[in-house]
C-alpha cells in the first residue's frame, strides 16, 4: 500500500482508540451541564473548554466521535449489503433482472439523495437508527455498480465455468466462487462509503434531523456552535476539524487500498 494509505490507516486506528478508550480515562459525562461554567476557554479542568450549557467539549468530542464513527460504519454496511445484492444479482442473472435493477440504480443516481433523506425523516421522524438505514438505503448505488462489473467479469472465468459444469448450484456459484473475487474492489468501495456516510450523518445531524441531543455527534455539536460563532468560534472548529480529518483518512485509505488491491486501477498517478 502507498505510504499515504498506511498513514491514513494509522491515523484512523489512533482515532478509533481515542474514541473507544478516551471516555474510560476522561470520565466527565458528555451530558453533564454546568451553566455557571458555560463557554469557557481551554483550561486545566476542561482542556477544550465548555459549550453553551457548560458541558465538557473534550468529553463530547470523544463520545460524539463514537456515535459518528458507528453511524458511518453501520450505514456503510447497510449500503454494502444492498449494493452487493442488487449489483451481483443483476450481473449474475442478466436479462430482465439486469435491465430492471441497473436502470433502478441509474435512476437513484439521477436523484438528489439529500432530498429523499428529508422525505424519509418527514415521515418517520429522526433517530439514529433511521439515519443509519436511510443513509444505507440511499448510498448503495456505487457499490452496486462495482458488484455488477465484478460479477460480469468473473461470471465467464474458467474456474467459474468449471464449477458450473460440475453441477454447483447458481446461488452457491455466486456466493462461493464469484463474490470472493469481488472482495478487493468491494473493500475499496466500502472504505470510500464510510467517508460518504460520515459526511452525510454530520450534515443531517447539523440540520437537527439526525442524531438527537443530548447524545452528541460531531454533526449535531456544530448545530449549536454556529450560534456562538461570534463569541466562541473554537466550539465550531473542533468537531469540523475532526470530521475533515477522519473523512480525509478514509478517502486516502480507500485510494491506498485501491492501488494495493487492484493494480488495474493504477493509472495516471
Amino acid at each position, binding site marked *: 500500500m502507498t505510504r499515504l494509505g498506511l498513514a491514513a490507516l494509522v491515523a484512523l486506528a489512533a482515532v478509533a482508540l481515542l474514541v473507544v478508550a478516551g471516555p474510560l480515562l476522561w470520565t466527565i459525562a458528555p451530558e453533564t451541564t454546568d451553566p455557571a461554567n458555560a463557554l469557557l476557554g481551554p483550561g486545566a479542568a476542561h482542556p477544550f473548554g465548555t459549550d453553551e450549557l457548560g458541558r465538557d467539549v473534550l468529553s463530547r468530542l470523544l463520545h460524539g466521535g463514537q456515535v459518528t464513527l458507528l453511524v458511518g460504519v453501520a450505514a456503510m454496511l447497510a449500503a454494502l449489503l444492498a449494493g452487493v445484492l442488487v449489483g451481483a444479482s443483476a450481473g449474475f442473472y442478466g436479462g430482465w433482472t439486469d435491465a430492471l435493477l441497473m436502470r433502478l440504480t441509474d435512476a437513484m443516481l439521477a*436523484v438528489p439523495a439529500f*432530498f429523499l433523506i428529508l422525505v424519509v425523516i418527514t415521515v418517520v421522524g429522526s433517530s439514529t437508527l433511521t439515519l443509519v438505514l436511510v443513509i444505507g438505503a440511499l448510498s448503495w448505488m456505487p457499490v452496486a455498480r462495482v458488484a455488477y462489473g465484478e460479477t460480469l467479469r468473473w461470471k465467464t472465468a474458467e474456474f467459474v465455468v468449471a464449477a458450473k459444469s460440475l453441477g454447483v448450484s447458481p446461488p452457491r456459484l455466486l456466493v462461493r466462487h464469484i463474490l470472493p473475487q469481488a472482495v478487493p474492489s468491494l473493500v475499496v468501495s466500502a472504505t470510500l462509503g464510510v467517508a460518504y456516510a460520515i459526511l452525510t450523518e454530520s450534515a443531517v445531524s447539523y440540520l437537527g434531523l439526525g442524531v438527537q441531543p443530548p447524545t452528541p455527534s460531531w454533526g449535531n455539536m*456544530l448545530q449549536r456552535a454556529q450560534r456562538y460563532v461570534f463569541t466562541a*468560534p473554537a466550539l465550531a472548529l473542533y468537531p*469540523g476539524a475532526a470530521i475533515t480529518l477522519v*473523512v480525509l483518512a478514509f*478517502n486516502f485509505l480507500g485510494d491506498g487500498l485501491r492501488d494495493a488491491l487492484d493494480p488495474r486501477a493504477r493509472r495516471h498517478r
Partner: protein
Amino acid sequence: MVDGEKVGAFLARRCALGALVVLFVSALTFFFVNLAPGGPASVMRFDVTAEQREALIRSMGLDRPVPERYVAWLSGAVRGDLGTSLLTDEPVAFRIGERLPNTLVLAGTALAVSLLIGIPMGVIQALRRGGPLDHALSLLSAVGLAVPVFWLGIVLILVFAVSLQVLPSAGVASVGDDSFGDRLAHLVLPAVVLATTILPTVVRFMRSAMLEVLHEDYVRTATSKGLAPRIVVTRHALRNALIPVVSAVGALVPRLLGGTVVTEAVFGWPGMGRLALEAASGRDYPLITGITVIVAMIAVATSVLVDLSYTRLDPRVRLA
C-alpha cells in the same frame, strides 16, 4: 456534423427517459409517504372523536387506496397543482415558486464557479504532473472532498463576515438595499461553499482527462508542427479533454442540488433547500413530496442539457 433530425430524436429519447425518472421519483416519494408508519393518516388530530376523525380522513380523501390517490395527485401535478401545504394552507406550487429562483441562482452560480475554477486547475495540474504544484493542488482537492460543506460555510463566515467583515453572512440582500452589488456580495460565500461539493471532483476528472489526451498522436503532431504550446493545449488538447468532463459534470448535478439544503441552512438563503428543511421538521407531506419531484425534474433537465452540449463538443458522438 450532426444533422438536425438526429438531434431531435436524441432529445426526444433523453426527455422520455428523464420523464420516466421523474415519474419513478414521484411514485417512490408518494407511496413511501403514504404507506410508511407515521404517514399522513396517523398524524391527523387526536383531540377529536373517532367519528370526527373518520370524517376528517374522508374529507381529505385519505380513505381511498393509495394507488388511486397517486393517480389523482399525478393528474393534478401535470397541470401544476401539487396539493396544499399543511403548514401554511397555501398551494405547494406557490410556495415552491417563491423559493425556486433563489435556489436556481445559487446552484447556477455554484456550477459556474466550480467549472471556472475546476477546469483551469485540472489543466494546470496535468501540465505540471508530478511537480510540487500538482501535489499541492491534489492535496487541496482531497481536503475539499473531505471537508463538510456546512462547516466550511461556518469557517468562511468566521473569516470573512466576523473577522474581516468584508462579506455578509446571511440572506440574499440587505434590508432596504436592492442594488446588484449588494445581492452579489450576499451570493459570494454561499456560491463558493456550494461549489465545493463538486469542485474537487471536477478538478480530478479534468486532470486525468487532460493527461490521457496529452499522450494522443494528434497532440504530438500539433506540437511537432511547431504550434505554440498554448495553442496546442487550448485548441487541441483541452477541447478533446473536455468531452468526458462534461458528461461527468452531468452526473454531479444531483450532488450539487443536494448540497443546497445544507448551504441554504448555513447562510439563511431562502431557497428550496431550506423549504425542504421546514417541510421535514414540520412534517408537511404534500410540500416535501412536491419539492422532491421538482428537484428531480431540475436534475433530469440539467442532465439532458449537459448531454446536448456533449453532442456539440464531440460531433463523433453517436446519437443512437
